[in-house]
């Protein structure tokens, strides 16, 4: 017999328990809101109290008398930017609630976001600073740690120079910490400053920025809801960006959109596709050109768009002509009919968006790959339009922001580069003397020379000194928030770690760095808190900035990034200079002040308008933003008319109140209203000199090509044709300089000195030039054409090149990798390695293609997520996916142990086999989040006691091999070779 709970409770407990039926008040409205069905009108009801409902708190009931406070921060595990609401009682994080008001995630999370509370609660975190003494971890104080590290750094500086210290930063930094880290490297005197973008989207940034000006996602996750065709090529967002699938799948349903997934694996994303195309790893360019071949042959291209807004298609078409269906099939294995069908859908059923992640970028041809993608988008007129665009899904929570803020060996913050003008700009912003700054470096030459990419740090440590173009090898790694197992060629990294004089790891966890080698001394682990224990902003993939507030104070003895960098700067003697305009109270650095400094210098990328006050207002009024357009209604105080998170570029000063740019290069809006044009970044015209025969004589002929837009301009623009970047000189020519205020003019004069005319939209610290340009409806960075020929890159037009370790040596003669060259202070021997592999017939011993990727449960190197008990339980073993045919041929059973061996360093790794048709025959795939085992040996005993992650396993990068993109130093872990045998 069934008994009503109320009867039972009354009978058993004998106490007055209110009947749940009476107290439950979920009406249709609140229910719909909680189900996330409505976003606009009803969302406003969110704060209405429900009659009869008790005081709400998540999780365990709070201790008697404790007040529960809800604090908002951002999930730290990918770039979607899901809002996390943490409920705190007595300083303890007691529960998480869904943030329905967030226009990005509407309360949703993936397993990582729904488990972030344990990132703070876990007992696996580093608790206090540790020092390795004769192979033992010893607890030390913060003061001792900073003193000893500082002394050691100064000694290295004295003996080897500042270039021998490597500052490896993090995509998990807040914007403010990323900026501070880059500034720290600058004040130390080196450009050896990098972070995870190197190994994730560095090639996207170089490829996309070299095409149309800025190297970021052009539209937004939400905007995918407007797409008619969604093509995912080189990405598995169902696992890497699960909440983006809310937008993708709802968009697919609402518009009955096509969803095409092109991938070597039948991924969880592909499971929801309308068409899945299985392709060989490393053949992106032939696939794209194969599609373009059909598009141009059938006249499906957008001729008007190309004529008005793109330069260079005539040349590119010659390359496309080399890819008829037969050649495409020979190289990629794709049948003509499928390529044609996909091409036709993409070109005709617009708007079409192309989504990608590491499946395009992590190749020696990464930059060329993403440029090919841009070419496809431009050919079909799918840029600058709602529902279209290059929707590039960045990886970490703030990899977009950390990239923007210059954790990069080739630039200062916000893509200013490294030339003297860039340094002088930032010295003005920092209020330090340029000559003093130059004195921090070995020389002005080094000040302007790109540093060493993070993929090559151990080469720069291990190679003979004369092969590394700096005064000495690397002697110290100062690592803040970067795993060691996400970089390829780990057996060589182990040797590199052993050779370093000093290794400092600042992280919530010990990370692979602390256990991988046989180091006995000279290693420090500094406990840094997570971003949940700090204030600061993060830039989501769609360029929106979101301000997170400290949910709880840093746990144990951990400190936040800002405070640690301040302590170190003080020890190194430049804290007063570095924190001149940043408030520090009792050692606590003001994140708001750092953002204000970024605003004062961030003109080039439109990081100038997002003041902390504006960002905080956005968080407060999250529920006011429209779910589809991300815009707040005009009449809402503080945020009226803004786009959520003020997606960059947010031009002008905060007072100008630019709303942010939700879609890049969108000419249907005025610039003041968030519209834009392609940036006139590559000059106003291109001069090409060619030698031609005239009357039997060879003469040089000059051809000039217009690089400015033709007849295309953004709404309300007073200039109805292309125009260059704005400088004071341009304003004068137009007679618009009269619109500058005296104050603005005074700042421009001060910046320009004796050459005020050259002061531009990106160096004018007053924001006046940007303001005046926009008042006339113009884009401060000009109105140019996108270019499909990037004449400054090794391959001006993308060319297919086989991976270094290709399964098709027969194709290497036609499609070899680029010749050996010196890049970023070290040699890139890709050609020699490829040739040697072909000559030695490596493919016969290592016949399987090895590719790698993400799991939904873990992130990056995985130390954090593998230490989270709710996530670790879900994936307890490292494994390799292998096709049933390949498994059968090797006597491998599902779930059995296997040894996987690689062609370099006699590498080997022991893991479990997952026999599945998810991978095609001849391809194996591994997740890259595991570490703590190396070549079959469990390293758990080497972790500091109690700080070992729950789950350990072999790292995929133990097996990955040589290969670097010449433009960025990107590694090639997506296509190499291996062999698998039963263990």
């Amino acid at each position, binding site marked *: 017999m*069934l008994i009503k709970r109320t009867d039972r409770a009354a009978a058993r407990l004998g106490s007055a328990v209110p009947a749940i039926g009476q107290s439950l008040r979920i009406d249709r409205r609140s229910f719909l809101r909680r189900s996330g069905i409505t976003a606009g009108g009803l969302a406003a009801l969110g704060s209405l109290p429900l009659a009869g*409902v008790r*005081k709400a708190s998540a999780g365990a009931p709070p201790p008697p008398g404790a007040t529960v406070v809800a604090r908002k921060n951002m999930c730290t595990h990918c770039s979607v930017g899901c809002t996390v609401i943490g409920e705190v009682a007595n300083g303890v994080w007691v529960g998480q609630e869904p943030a329905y008001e967030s226009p990005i995630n509407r309360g*949703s999370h993936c397993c990582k976001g*729904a488990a972030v509370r344990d990132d703070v609660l876990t007992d696996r975190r580093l608790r206090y600073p540790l020092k390795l003494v004769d192979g033992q971890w010893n607890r030390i104080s913060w003061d001792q740690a900073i003193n000893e590290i500082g002394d050691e750094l100064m000694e290295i500086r004295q003996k080897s120079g500042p270039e021998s210290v490597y500052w490896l930063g993090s995509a998990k930094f807040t914007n403010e910490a990323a900026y501070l880290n880059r500034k720290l490297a600058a004040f130390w005197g080196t450009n050896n400053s990098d972070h995870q973008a190197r190994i994730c989207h560095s090639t996207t940034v170089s490829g996309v920025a070299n095409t149309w000006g800025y190297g970021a996602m052009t539209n937004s996750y939400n905007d995918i809801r407007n797409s008619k065709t969604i093509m995912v090529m080189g990405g598995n967002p169902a696992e890497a960006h*699960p909440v983006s699938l809310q937008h993708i799948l709802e968009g697919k349903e609402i518009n009955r959109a096509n969803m095409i997934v092109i991938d070597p694996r039948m991924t969880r994303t592909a499971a929801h596709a309308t068409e899945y195309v299985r392709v060989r790893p490393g053949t992106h360019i032939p696939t794209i050109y194969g599609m373009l071949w059909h598009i141009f042959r059938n006249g499906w291209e957008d001729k008007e768009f190309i004529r008005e807004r793109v330069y260079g298609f005539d040349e590119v078409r010659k390359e496309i002509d080399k890819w008829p269906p037969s050649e495409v099939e020979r190289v990629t294995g794709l049948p003509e009919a499928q390529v044609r069908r996909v091409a036709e859908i993409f070109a005709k059923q617009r708007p079409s968006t192309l989504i990608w992640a590491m499946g395009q970028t992590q190749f020696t041809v990464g930059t060329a790959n993403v440029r090919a993608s841009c070419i496809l988008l431009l050919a079909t007129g799918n840029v600058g339009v709602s529902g279209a665009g290059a929707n590039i899904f960045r990886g970490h929570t703030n990899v977009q922001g950390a990239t923007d803020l210059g954790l990069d060996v080739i630039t200062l913050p916000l893509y200013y580069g490294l030339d003297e003008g860039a340094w002088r700009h930032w010295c003005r912003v920092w209020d330090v003397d340029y000559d003093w700054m130059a004195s921090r470096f070995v020389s002005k030459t080094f000040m302007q020379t790109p540093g060493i990419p993070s993929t090559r740090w151990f080469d720069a440590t291990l190679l003979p000194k004369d092969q590394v173009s700096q005064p000495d090898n690397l002697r110290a790694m100062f690592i803040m928030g970067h795993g060691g197992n996400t970089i390829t060629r780990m057996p060589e990294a182990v040797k590199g770690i052993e050779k370093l004089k000093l290794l400092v790891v600042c992280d919530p966890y010990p990370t692979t760095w602390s256990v991988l080698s046989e180091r006995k001394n000279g290693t420090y682990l500094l406990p840094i808190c997570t971003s949940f224990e700090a204030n600061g902003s993060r830039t989501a993939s769609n360029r929106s900035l979101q301000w997170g507030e400290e949910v709880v104070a840093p746990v144990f003895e951990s400190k936040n990034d800002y405070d640690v960098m301040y302590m170190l700067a003080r020890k190194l003697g430049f804290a007063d200079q570095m924190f001149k305009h940043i408030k520090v109270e009792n050692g606590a650095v003001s994140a708001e002040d750092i953002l204000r400094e970024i605003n004062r210098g961030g003109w080039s990328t439109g990081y100038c308008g997002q003041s902390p006050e504006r960002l905080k207002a956005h968080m407060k009024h999250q529920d006011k933003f429209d779910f589809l357009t991300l815009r707040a209604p005009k009449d809402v105080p503080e945020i009226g008319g803004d786009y959520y998170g003020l997606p960059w570029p947010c031009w002008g000063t905060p007072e100008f109140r630019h709303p942010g740019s939700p879609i890049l290069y969108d000419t249907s809006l005025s610039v003041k209203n968030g519209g834009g044009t392609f940036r006139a970044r590559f000059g106003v015209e291109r001069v090409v000199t060619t030698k031609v025969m005239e009357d039997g004589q060879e003469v040089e002929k000059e051809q000039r090509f217009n690089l400015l837009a033709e007849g295309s301009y953004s709404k309300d623009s007073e200039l109805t044709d292309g125009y260059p970047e704005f400088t004071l000189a341009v304003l004068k020519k137009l007679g618009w300089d009269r619109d500058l205020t005296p104050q603005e003019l005074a700042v421009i004069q001060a910046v320009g000195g004796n050459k005020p005319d050259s002061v531009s939209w990106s160096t004018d610290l007053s924001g006046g030039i940007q303001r005046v340009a926009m008042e006339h409806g113009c884009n401060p960075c000009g109105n140019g054409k996108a270019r499909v020929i990037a004449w400054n890159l090794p391959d001006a037009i993308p060319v297919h090149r086989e991976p270094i370790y290709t399964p098709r040596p027969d194709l290497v003669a036609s499609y070899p990798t680029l010749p050996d060259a010196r890049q970023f202070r070290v040699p890139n021997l890709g050609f020699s390695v490829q040739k040697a592999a072909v000559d030695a017939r490596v493919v016969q011993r290592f016949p399987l293609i090895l590719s790698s990727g993400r799991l939904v449960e873990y992130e990056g190197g995985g130390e954090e997520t593998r230490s989270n008990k*709710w996530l670790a339980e*879900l994936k307890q073993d490292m494994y390799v*996916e292998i096709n049933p045919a390949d498994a059968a041929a090797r006597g491998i059973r599902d779930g059995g142990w296997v040894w996987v061996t690689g062609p370099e360093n006699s590498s080997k790794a022991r893991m479990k086999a997952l026999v*599945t048709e998810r991978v095609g025959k001849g391809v194996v795939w591994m997740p890259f989040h595991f570490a703590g085992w190396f070549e079959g040996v469990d390293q758990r005993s080497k972790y500091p006691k109690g700080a070992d992650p729950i789950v350990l396993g072999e790292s995929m990068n133990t097996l990955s091999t040589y290969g670097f993109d010449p433009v960025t130093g990107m590694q090639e872990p997506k296509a190499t070779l291996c062999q698998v045998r039963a263990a």
Partner: protein
Amino acid sequence: MARMKFLCDAERCIECNACVTACKNENEVPWGINRRRLVTINDGKPGERSVSMACMHCSDPPCASVCPVDCFMVTADHVVLHSKDLCIGCGYCFYACPFGAPQYPSVSNFGSRGKMDKCTYCAGGPEPDNTQAEFAKYGANRLSQGKLPLCAEMCSTKSLLAGDGDIIAQIYKERVAKRGYGSGAWGWQTAYHEGIPA
């Protein structure tokens, strides 16, 4: 009066496991106990689909029918709860449940499996609402606070729906009508003796 149900839209589920960790987080469910889990069919093949599974809070709960100590109860909102004070860990309910919902903290050949644990629809247990005693045995009691189970509230793609059966059925119907396909409300026939005609 609301009749609470779960509905997993398999066309939306991407097996991200958010429901699983949300449940763990909210109810502090220990390692090894899975009140909710994902089941995938055709894994890695075309047609791969996943559904999120937990106690469905059946209309005529088989667990209650077989329980020798009669520890189950159904609330006014038709949430199936049980008393851990009465449960003897016999495991009958596990055999009776068509969804594999009941979980046990220990497994041994002889003796008890420990007190059965399962999804409470985030509605706690027989103890007074939102007390430490209730939380320790059953986890959170969101329903009494006007909130729905956190698994559904946090679902990444709004695949897992929770709430009044009529309303979520309506939402599902509208979805299917809009997109033109649907594989049916998984488990509804078994749990609620009704389907949702698409």
